[in-house]
């Protein structure tokens, strides 16, 4: 790695000691950033320098660094997971930036996602929504013979597309209303589209939407910024499916 290829970056990073702390943007200058580094490796590099100076390293969420776990987050220059389409922060590389660039890095911001420290937020609101109904609760029996449960190819594809959601929260972060509808609709759709999940589809839609509202997420205004920011390209057609599923469930009483 020759020095001529490296970049110097002006970083504006949100520092916040705890949930109760007010927090502020702190400026850092980072030299010697290779374009081949991932965005998180760039923060690792800064953190090594901070630790060497006995400063508090910047806290941020990450796990697999392969774009599949949903742990990494970060608003990068005002965009969830940065400027690239269908890319998680860990899969974003520094070649997307130029020498001398100023990069603002902030945590997801939503009432339902309180900041824990620096760039880390508490996303357990998503877990609570899943707990409200994002599972199959009926006995599906033993493994069936192949092709004994027929599923249209289109439904299998749509369910698989919805199931690609990694629950990172970029939809909430990018939505001007901090709405969780893309996440919730993907979790409702991946089950409702398949025979095992269809049995409880009505109650699931009611319970999960009710929980989402209770947790203080905003309302959808059909702007599709969520879809545009989603690292897994989840379509807002899932939101439409949830909307009609909810309405159907709400008007059809299963009791006498």
């Amino acid at each position, binding site marked *: 790695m020759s020095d001529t290829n490296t970049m110097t970056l002006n970083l*504006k990073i949100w520092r916040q000691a705890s949930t109760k702390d007010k927090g502020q943007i702190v400026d850092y200058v980072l030299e010697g950033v290779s374009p081949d580094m991932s965005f998180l490796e760039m923060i690792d590099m800064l953190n090594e320098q901070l630790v060497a100076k006995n400063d508090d390293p910047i806290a941020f969420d990450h796990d697999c660094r392969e774009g599949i776990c949903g742990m990494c987050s970060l*608003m990068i220059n005002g965009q969830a997971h940065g400027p690239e389409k269908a890319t998680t922060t860990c899969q974003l590389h520094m070649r997307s930036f130029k020498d001398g660039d100023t990069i603002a890095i902030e945590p997801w911001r*939503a*009432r339902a996602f309180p900041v824990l420290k620096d760039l880390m937020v508490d996303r357990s609101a998503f877990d609570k929504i899943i707990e409200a109904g994002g599972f199959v609760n009926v006995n599906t029996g033993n493994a069936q013979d192949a092709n004994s449960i027929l599923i249209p190819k289109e439904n299998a594809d749509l369910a698989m597309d919805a199931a690609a959601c990694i629950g990172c929260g970029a939809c909430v972060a990018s939505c*001007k209303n901090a709405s969780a509808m893309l996440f919730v609709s993907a979790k409702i759709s991946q089950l409702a589209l398949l025979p095992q999940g269809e049995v409880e589809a009505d109650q699931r839609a*009611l319970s999960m939407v009710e929980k989402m*509202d209770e947790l203080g997420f905003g309302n959808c205004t059909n702007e599709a910024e969520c879809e545009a920011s989603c690292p897994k390209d989840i379509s807002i*057609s899932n939101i439409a499916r949830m909307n009609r599923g909810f309405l159907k469930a709400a008007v059809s009483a299963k*009791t006498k």
Partner: protein
Amino acid sequence: MSSSTQSFSRSYFLSSVVKKQIMAVTGLLLCGFLLGHLAGNLLIIISPDAFNQYGHALVSNKPLLYTAEAGLIVLFLVHLCMAAKLTVENNTARPQKYYIKQKTGRGATFASSTMPYTGLIILIFLITHLNSFKYGTIYMTTIDGVEMRDLYRTVMEFFAQPLGAAWYAFAMIAMAIHVSHGFWSAFQSFGFSHSKYTPLLRKAGIAYAILVGAGFTALALYGYIQGVQA
């Protein structure tokens, strides 16, 4: 999924999904009203008498008039109150704003991100609009032996003022922007989504917005030009 015995209840009305559906149904019905209103107004271009006779026919049928007015007031108030409630809730959902927020350029449009503002312009317009026309200066005229209000004259006097015509045109452009997002959005809120028809619906929304926007603006322009020539 604990509440398996739940039936349709009050809480569904207050859910985020149904609130949007209430916005959708009231919005679409108001879109229908707008088309009817435009069609009636275009009589101004045909002849003053045709416009006045149309207006007279509307106000003469009291049961129809009051039913329509009551319906419109309800639609408008529900749309407005729900919009206010949703906007407040949406602001509360993100108490701390971003230091920098940038749109992706792949989702939100100018129309979609300005809905509360264009909505507010329409509200202010509506008040001034009723004040200038419905409750404006009353002139009388006699057509075929029937005495009726000369609404044509009231309208034309309003449009003859540059500020009047400009404000009207400005509000109608804001309204066109508002419905260009609202029309398609209403279908999405109800859950209508189809790979083939949804793109068509989005185009239909824009075509509808251009039609009503251009139609009403053309009337203001027509009135202003008539005023200048007079």
